């Protein structure tokens, strides 16, 4: 079982190696990187490429670790007891399975995505240490030990909003997705828009990388924004010359709103362009 990217996802060598090491050793893989470099996509693509079921657990600031294992719904049991429902005698009826449980129970090996783990409380990763390490947990209400049939491939993403505890990091493999270089970028675009005009692509990429160089931007445009922008360029049938006519950095490219997403960055960029025009 080896992962090497898919027809819609370009993975660099080091990323492939990281995924394969995580699969072989059954360790969780922690993925960091700039926003829009395809961290969440990775789990979907791995599941697709290796033909495994995918369980996604999206973490929010209010998510608790045991929600991923199971929840005991005491309130509905209480209500059922008031209404005289028969189900009330079996406590198992009120245990709601979490994503981790589902992944552990899966008939075949599965992929489990724990998305944006840094959004949760800082104690959250610590509460999952045992579960990720031994791949088992205990259900107190029913006195059951849930053990993974096959160690799932666990992919965890983080946006670096919070520092993760050392004990947690020690149990993971860590990979940082670097921002793709121009060459990889061409491959990525090729995968998403096959047959895009080479001249348009070339000047679009030049403009894009030039824009990333602009100092002081709060949010640099990322791969996903580039893809959106290209979609617009193709849809509007903007010729390559329109991007290329002036020197880069001295004109505002068409539809630049797709690349810069906050008004301060837009303002800064427009002013810089204005300044360099005057400076000519």
């Amino acid at each position, binding site marked *: 079982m080896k992962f090497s990217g898919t027809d819609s996802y370009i993975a660099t060598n080091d990323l492939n190696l990281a995924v394969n090491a995580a699969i*072989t050793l059954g360790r969780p893989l922690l993925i960091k990187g700039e926003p829009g470099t395809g961290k969440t996509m990775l789990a979907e693509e791995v599941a697709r490429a290796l033909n495994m079921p995918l369980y996604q657990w999206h973490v929010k600031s209010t998510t608790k670790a045991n929600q991923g294992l199971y929840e005991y719904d005491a309130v509905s049991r209480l209500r059922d007891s008031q209404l005289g429902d028969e189900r009330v005698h079996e406590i198992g009826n009120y245990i709601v399975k979490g994503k981790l449980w589902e992944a552990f129970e899966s008939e075949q090996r599965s992929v489990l995505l724990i998305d944006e783990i840094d959004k949760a409380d800082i104690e959250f990763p610590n509460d999952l240490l045992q579960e990720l390490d031994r791949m088992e947990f205990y259900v107190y209400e029913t006195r059951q030990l849930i053990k993974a049939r096959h160690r799932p491939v666990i992919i965890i993403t983080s946006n670096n909003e919070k520092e993760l505890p050392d004990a947690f990091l020690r149990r993971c493999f860590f990979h940082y997705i670097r921002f793709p270089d121009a060459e990889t970028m061409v491959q990525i675009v090729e995968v998403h828009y096959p047959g895009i005009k080479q001249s348009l692509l070339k000047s679009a990429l030049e403009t894009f990388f030039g824009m990333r160089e602009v100092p002081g931007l709060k949010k640099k445009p990322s791969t996903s924004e580039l893809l959106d922008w290209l979609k617009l360029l193709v849809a509007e049938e903007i010729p390559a010359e329109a991007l290329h006519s002036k020197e880069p950095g001295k004109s505002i490219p068409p539809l630049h709103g797709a690349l810069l997403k906050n008004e301060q960055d837009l303002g800064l960029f427009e002013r810089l362009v204005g300044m360099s025009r005057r400076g000519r």
Partner: protein
Amino acid sequence: MLVDFFLQLKQAKVPVTVREYLSLLEALDRQVVWGSVEDFYYLARLCLVKDETNFDKFDRVFAQYFEGVTALGEELETQIPEEWLRKLSELVLSEEEKSQIEALGGFEKLMETLKQRLAEQKERHQGGSKWIGTGGRSPFGAYGYNPEGVRIGQDGSRHRRAVKVWDRREFKNLDGSVELGTRNIKVALRRLRHFAREGAPEVLDMPGTIRATANNAGYLDLKMVPKLHNKVKVLLFFDVGGSMDEHIKVCEELFSAARVEFKSLEYFYFHNFIYENVWRDNQRYRAERIDLWDVIHTYGPDYKLIFVGDAAMSPYEISMVGGSVEHYNDEAGYVWGQRLLDAYRDAIWLNPTPQGWWNFTQSVGMVRQLMDGRMFPLTLAGLDEGIRLLSKIQR
């Protein structure tokens, strides 16, 4: 096997543990990679390094250990920035030595000599006492000491005195994404949490439900309450630039921890002392200033006020009209300071310079007096003490 490599990593301060080392060996044993140095490099990094800020250190140790490996690529090149006028060393001079250094003469003469020497000098220079460069005793160049020195290639004052700054200061915005070592700070800040129930009822109210159910002759009557929220509101004022440069890291850590910990956090920057306006963006601080009255009127008295600054300045900057280094202020700094303190009763000042040094600077004493002694060093202990005080006066 690879024990030396592991120990060298440890020595280079890459945080590696035995567990991670063993998992690397396990991966090698299972033949995850075979026969390629580059693949081995990626695998070792995958297993041993858990933070992208340590990648660079790892690369250096790896290259050193596996001598002759050249395929590492661009990362290595970035380590040898050979910049003209780069700070390499600093002169450490006692007060006595400083007074021994003679000034060269008047300002005009300084500029003239500078032009001359710039013309004469063709190479990078550092140290020494004639040529222009960094860390020396010549009146020209940066990071050195000469009472009438002219700064070149330096972005802030070191000895807080200079005739003229040639390069315009670029203040750095405090980076909210820096996360190193902020965990401890967060734990300290947590003490300031003040929970209150506000908003839509969505959590089961246990005591209320039991009471209502009992009243209802045993039939269930569910009661809900709003969720607990951290209600504390904080105004942060940061001193930036100039003498604060050496404290940037600790300030960034504080800032990033505070941003995560408090939902209602407003931050502003000032330079040396508070005057009639402050700003939120250091890149454009000349253009976009915020009137301090607006701040006072916008944020209610329930906000808690935290200043972060070294309070090292000329006493005139606090006490005199027109004393500001940046502009002409119509009202003295302490008037504005007092206005803020009148508006916000809960206030502390965090000072990143060590407490032992405070007595050597007159302005620190003045600020402490203004703050009623509520100044704390920006260390974990000091932060703890300050936050404790802030939460004590919580109503």
